């Protein structure tokens, strides 16, 4: 049975349609990565799967159960979400943060069961933050902090993990650190659905790449099957070559110089240059 089945999902923001009939499925142990230009609906798709955005039509099933038919507490035992750049209260320790992931299993009279302790310990070990447990979150590096948040989601012990741009605030070294960690998690049988901005990283780490634009699914499949210059053009309106990465042979997209097709290209480039001077626009 598929871990996640999204069937003909339609959703709107107010009156504006954002998702127009999205269908996809993710198997146990798979990493699915959603890519697409800004405003294509990828975040809304993730939020709809997480039961945070009510769809107008269509269903989301996790391990066969429609998430809108389940109670919130039971959904919380099936899927975990890590939003983009989450913030913890000042002074919170790593151990206290990760413990929050146990909320769906706890109550007023069961605040720290043996199962809670085991799950938190395992989550710390899986993400390599056990040695940081006593530290304050605000004194860690960006990569360490993101691994702690990941540990919190792991402690939730859900078969499905949803991540919204887990590497957006990180430098290249920490990006690789976090993505490798996610790959290890998937190898242990969890399914991961994440949104990534970086097409190179997406193509390298995805088992299933999901390309979206304007609320439609353009393509879904193994990166080396679907990443072509034609797809890149349909996604981002740019001309690009697709190379093979040395080593694993993952597709690498290289935009061609002057390949921008949209009339707004010149404007956005000049803005990009001037934003190098922070005083000018702030």
């Amino acid at each position, binding site marked *: 049975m598929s871990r996640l089945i999204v069937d003909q999902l339609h959703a709107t923001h107010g009156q504006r349609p954002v998702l127009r009939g999205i269908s996809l499925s993710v198997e146990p142990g798979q990493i699915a990565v959603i890519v697409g230009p800004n405003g294509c609906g990828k975040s809304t798709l993730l939020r709809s799967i997480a039961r945070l955005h009510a769809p107008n039509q269509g269903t989301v099933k996790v391990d066969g159960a429609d998430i809108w038919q389940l109670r919130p507490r039971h959904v919380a035992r099936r899927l975990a*979400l890590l*939003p983009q750049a989450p913030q913890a209260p*000042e002074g919170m320790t790593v151990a206290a943060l990760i413990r*929050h992931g146990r909320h769906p299993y*706890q109550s007023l*009279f069961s*605040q720290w069961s043996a199962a809670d302790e085991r799950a938190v*310990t395992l989550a710390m070990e899986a993400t390599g933050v056990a040695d940081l447990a006593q530290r304050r979150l605000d004194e860690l590096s960006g990569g360490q902090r993101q691994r702690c948040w990941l540990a919190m989601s792991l402690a939730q012990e859900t078969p499905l993990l949803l991540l919204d741009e887990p590497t957006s605030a990180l430098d290249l070294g920490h990006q690789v650190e976090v993505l490798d960690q996610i790959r290890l998690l998937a190898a242990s049988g969890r399914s991961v659905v994440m949104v990534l901005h970086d097409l190179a990283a997406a193509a390298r780490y995805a088992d299933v790449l999901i390309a979206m634009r304007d609320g439609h699914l353009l393509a879904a499949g193994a990166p080396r099957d679907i990443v072509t210059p034609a797809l890149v053009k349909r996604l981002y309106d740019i001309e690009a070559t697709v190379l093979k990465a040395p080593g694993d042979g993952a597709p690498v997209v290289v935009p061609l110089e002057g390949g921008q097709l949209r009339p707004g290209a010149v404007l956005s480039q000049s803005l990009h240059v001037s934003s190098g001077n922070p005083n000018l626009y702030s």
Partner: protein
Amino acid sequence: MNAPLPLVPRALEAGTLGLRWGPFSLLIAWRPLLTGLLLLLALAGAIALALLAGDTWFTPADLWAVLSGRASPDQQLLMIEFRLPRILVGLLAGAALGLAGCLTQALSRNRLAVPDVLGVSDGATLGAVVGLIASTSGMLGPWWTGPLGALVAIVLLLLAAGRHAGRGEQILVVGLAIAALLRAFVELLLSRQDLTHAGALYNWSTGSLSGRGLDAALPLTIGLACLFLPTLLLLRQLNLLRLDPDIARTLGVNLQRTRLLALLIAVLLAGLAVGLCGPIAFVALAAPWLASRLAGGGRLALLGSALTGALLIVLADTGGRILLAGNELPAGVVCNLLGGPFLLWLLFNEREGEAR
């Protein structure tokens, strides 16, 4: 397992103890517990001081005499009849304000979002002023005028802030606007009153506890008693809310219900305190902040905020009574005097980028 076994796992932060007994388990953090006890002791000390200090000073021996029932009628009268009721009222109002501030701060994830700023206090003030004017005796109106005014203010705020109510600075700006509007109404009403009403109004509007007695203590006690338990039941959810609203929801928290309940409790508590004791500023801002500093570890300190709030007002009232001999400073004025420097100190102590 027959007896609770202490566990020493790495998975818990230092200073936290997990206790298990069959299917039940408890998590005890020493520091909030100890600071809670210390605050209780400090509060007891402040109450004793408030009983002894004033135009006539007593010795601890006199206090002991009163407690054991061997005091002279004068001592009895001054300490029990005059001083004790206003101490009680100050204590209860402080606890209510501290708790209310802690709730609104946790809800909006913003340390500045307290009843004073959100217009709740001004709504309560308006309610109380209308109640006072409507009464013929020149006394304060019934206890429910404050909470009612506060509720009206928060409904206005939520309507005006609309969909943005849950997030960011927007609600603070709207709150300030509503607070200013309500204050203008209060001023307008005040300017049209005769002397009988104006005198009582002035006394009340400076946050003076002078003459406050059991008629104010009783509604506050009942309000706190009824609202504190639901607050404790919300504690787990509120803690998650401070992380991130989306995370809280995917962890199974009913966000809207939690927010609405917590806001309602905060508004009722602040409305009660302001309606009965006058607008005492800064306590709702300072108490939760001090309490969470004392409790440490980024914890939400509900009980600590209530205790700190109580301590602050009892001390402010006592200070106001003894600082200028023969000329009493209202507790609200003392809080205003201390509040400005406190806010500056808070700003300078805040580390950059952590304005929460």
